């Protein structure tokens, strides 16, 4: 019941968001057909035929409807030079997915680890260090982190390759992944800490301790499991953010992913590529949100009952 309602909400949101993006991109000034011709003068009849061929004369809503129909059949349209967008993106998706996944795992493991370390001893040295460090990481813009890491860890110390994907996974993806995940890692660590601190003070933890359970069992089995609920939410939502945030990281480390492609396409005004990528990203984002909400209901029965 809860799941069905949640799904019913997600569908209109998906169409509205993608339509908004579609409108935004194709409202770009400049005639793509004229741009295609370059400096040469083109007869009006040819322009008309071309516009008709690409359905540019239809109302926007019809164009959008036709486009979405294609998307659900795996067809993302073609660029104005005739190359299918899905072909253009095929290899690039793999790069971005590997990058986002590396960053995500990094966030998950290191973030939760640091959060637990800080939360267990509130006010201790580890806690102070984690709090100060994460605030700092959140404040430094990603591209500054990226360049600094590239020069210091990659070039000067030679610990990682500095650019490209020659070494494949994981070698080439470790440093970019850490840079991309640094922001989320700081959030995960702080979220885990706050949540654990609150839960450690809860009555059920005192009861568990009073029953004589070992500290390890109280923390690991009782407190931590409940504390991780908001963290799971964040991690789910953040996967979509990571895919989108890859634009900057892929630029710095010269990884041939979709972020790099979409950025080039925006500047060349290749609308079909931009809409294709952003539509797929929105799909991933909404699916991740949906998955998290459903998982949330499983993890915390109170939510399922309250909303149903």
């Amino acid at each position, binding site marked *: 019941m809860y799941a069905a309602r949640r799904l019913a909400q997600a569908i209109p949101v998906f169409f509205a968001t993608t339509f*908004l993006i579609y409108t*935004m991109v194709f409202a770009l000034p400049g005639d793509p057909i004229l741009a295609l011709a370059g400096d040469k003068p083109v007869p009006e009849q040819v322009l008309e035929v071309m516009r008709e061929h690409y359905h540019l004369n239809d109302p926007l809503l019809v164009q959008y409807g036709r486009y979405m129909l294609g998307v659900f059949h795996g067809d993302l349209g073609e660029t104005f030079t005739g190359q299918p967008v899905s072909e253009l993106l095929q290899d690039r998706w793999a790069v971005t997915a590997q990058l986002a996944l590396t960053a995500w795992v990094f966030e998950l493991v290191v973030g939760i680890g640091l959060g637990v370390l800080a939360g267990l001893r509130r006010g201790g040295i580890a806690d102070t260090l984690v709090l100060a460090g994460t605030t700092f990481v959140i404040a430094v813009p990603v591209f*500054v982190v990226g360049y600094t890491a590239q020069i210091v860890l990659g070039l000067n110390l030679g610990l990682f390759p500095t650019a490209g994907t020659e070494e494949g996974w994981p070698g080439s993806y470790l440093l970019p992944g850490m840079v991309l995940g640094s922001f989320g890692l700081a959030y995960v660590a702080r979220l885990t800490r706050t949540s654990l601190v609150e839960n450690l003070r809860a009555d059920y933890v005192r009861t568990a301790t009073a029953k004589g359970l070992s500290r390890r069992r109280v923390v690991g089995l009782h407190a931590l499991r409940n504390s991780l609920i908001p963290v799971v939410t964040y991690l789910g939502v953040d996967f979509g953010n990571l895919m989108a945030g890859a634009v900057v990281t892929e630029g710095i480390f010269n990884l041939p992913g979709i972020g790099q492609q979409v950025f080039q396409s925006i500047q060349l005004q290749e609308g079909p590529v*931009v809409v294709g990528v952003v539509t797929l990203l929105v799909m991933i984002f909404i699916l991740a949100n949906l998955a998290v909400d459903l998982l949330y209901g499983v993890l915390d029965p109170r939510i399922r009952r309250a909303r149903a």
Partner: protein
Amino acid sequence: MLARDAWLELRGRVVFWFSTAVLLVALAMAAFPGLFTRIGPNENCDLRLSKHGPASGAPFGYDLQGCDYWSQVVHGARASIVVGVSVTIFALLISIVLGTIAGYYGGVADAIISRITDVFFGIPFVLGATVVLVAFPDHGIWAMTLVLVLLGWTTMTRLMRGQVIAVKEMDFVAAARMLGSGDRRLMFRHILPNAIAPVIVVAMLNVGNVIAGEATLDYLGVGLQYPDVSWGLQLNIAQTFFAGHPHLLVFPALFLTATVLSFLMLGDVVRDALDPRLR
């Protein structure tokens, strides 16, 4: 009462005074750059000095055009502060209005506002902003503000709505209603003052995030353009040359980080002060 307690708590925190001091300096730089440097933006540049490092008379060295880097960095403060503060104020106003209406009335109004919020929440920030900004190539600082407001009002609206829903169930609201208060009076005199504190905290954190976002767009080359001066633009130029000329990256990055960090730390300590549970 809460405000007084919070102030007493804040007064004793070093972090509070430190971040306030940094922000005052940054605000002064944005409002009166003349206090810090006599050279105007993009003035007195000498191409022969291009990319020279720090020297006597030029503590930060020179930029790509051979302009004194210290004064360029000082003039860069205005773009960041103006965009960060104005985006947050506009977004805050939107979220107060929409969040209060959605939370207070519920039903259809809530459903419509919440779905619209979901739609805008789903647009990836950097990509969405890039698409719009590329469409309008001659944008200045206000166009950027508009775009960032458009993409940045959702989080605060959701929070505001949740707060209003929580507060409107409380006894004092029921009491006020029984004394005959109308909807508007209930919303603005009774519910809003008691619901807004966490939203203000998020707004403070938001200023920092918006400043970082603006710098990211400048850095990607779709934000402000020369002859505007901003930290993001300086970092954009620095990316090409910084292996050999690190001062180009270090100084604007330092100022940018200090400003963003101060907004985040200020938001953090204010939240701690307002939330007695953590004490």
